[in-house]
């Protein structure tokens, strides 16, 4: 299944800030990843933007709020809106996260981790099955950053990702920055994580710089990709048959030339399979 996914190359996470630049430098951006949530219940202006982007780029939607780790199940209204967007875009795949973002009527507004347990893996499997009944486009899942770990976890993060991926057949979106940040903050070796994960299900990569906040690294997506993260990127790209990579820059925006340089550097490292 994953081997039949098309090769998209190296793309950019679209932000309104980049609107003029992406058109000016269209030939240097292989595709755009859009934040699906920005186009759900969208204003006419936002829908016009989406049409224009679709006419000019290959688009892949990245959603933030499916909350696949929620034990209470999937929000039907959100799922249906997302399905309509995906039907319009016709992407080769779409992505969300290994997290929960709502429970008990509260939207957390952020990607919150789940304990790595059998129960949580079953919750993901059930929610993914519910999504597939409505959206036929393949779903891939991204690893998140976290600031705490649950003592009740029964397995490592890598084992949990692999379990869910194996049991559901979902591909993985490996965010190498998130992996690097978690490894630094919790003192584990990202190479061992990659060994345990096994990489054949990795479809796409995310990358951007990390940000130091006191004694921790955090994922503000506001810095240039640093050497340590390029090392993870290059290692994964050499070992996995990835189909796409996306630079996710959300703040402290540099001149667009710097963004293009990062895309070019990533392109030299990936041998898109």
């Amino acid at each position, binding site marked *: 299944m994953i081997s039949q996914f098309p090769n998209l190359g190296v793309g950019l996470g679209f932000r309104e800030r980049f609107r003029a630049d992406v058109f000016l430098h269209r030939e240097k951006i292989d595709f755009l990843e859009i934040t699906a949530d920005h186009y759900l219940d969208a204003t006419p202006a936002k829908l016009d933007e989406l049409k224009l982007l679709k006419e000019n780029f290959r688009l892949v939607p990245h959603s933030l709020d499916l909350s696949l780790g929620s034990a209470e199940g999937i929000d039907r209204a*959100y799922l249906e809106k997302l399905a309509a967007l995906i039907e319009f875009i016709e992407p080769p795949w779409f992505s969300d996260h290994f997290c929960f973002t709502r429970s008990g009527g509260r939207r957390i507004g952020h990607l919150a981790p789940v304990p790595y347990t059998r129960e949580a893996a079953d919750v993901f499997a059930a929610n993914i099955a519910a999504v597939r009944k409505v959206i036929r486009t393949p779903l891939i899942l991204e690893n998140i950053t976290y600031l705490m770990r649950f003592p009740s976890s029964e397995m490592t993060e890598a084992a949990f990702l692999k379990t869910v991926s194996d049991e559901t057949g979902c591909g993985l979106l490996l965010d190498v920055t998130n992996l690097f940040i978690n490894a630094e903050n919790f003192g584990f070796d990202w190479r061992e994580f990659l060994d345990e994960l096994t990489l054949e299900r990795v479809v796409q990569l995310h990358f951007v710089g990390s940000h130091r906040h006191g004694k921790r690294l955090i994922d503000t997506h506001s810095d240039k990709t640093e050497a340590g993260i390029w090392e993870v990127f290059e290692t994964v790209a050499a070992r996995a048959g990835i189909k796409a990579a996306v630079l996710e820059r959300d703040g402290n925006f540099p001149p667009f030339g710097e963004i293009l340089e990062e895309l070019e550097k990533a392109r030299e490292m990936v041998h898109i399979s």
Partner: protein
Amino acid sequence: MSLRHQQDLLARLYTDAEFRAKFLSDPQAGGREYELSAAETDEIATIVPEELEFFSETLFWKRLRETEKLLPLTKKALADEFSGYFRRFSGKFQPKTVKKHLEDAVAFCGYLRKSAGPDDLTKDLAGYERARLVFFGSGRRIIVRRLRFDLRRLPEIGRNPFSAENFPRRQTIAVWLRTGGKTRHFLI
């Protein structure tokens, strides 16, 4: 272990600062409210408090930053006090839809207008920005808002340092209107 009850409790802890403080001083009472056993509550309580605080703070700052972006005039009027008001507001209000930042901003303006602290001009500016957000967020054809201050100099003041002298007291009407696919705005 019931993951669902655990997640209900975590979602509350992440989004409600008052409840968080209560839980950290007496975890078992908070756990019972969510039908967790003593052992299950202990697990959540062992998630180091500063990490929980850090996570929740990250969320708070994200909400604050997005709300500030949507309410530039109110932000200028309140300056450093903006975040204090927003902190008191944010624990009590939970956005329900995907337009969560817009919901936050609109509800926060309502909260400011009912609060005792902000001066009348600040309340007027919050009401003005609230009406603008509702207009552009809803697709409504017309919105009219009565103001107690003369905000007609807003366009020329633009990015200049905010000063109350620029806005004398004067009954003013703000109108947003959609006609023939275009939006128009007047201050009379």
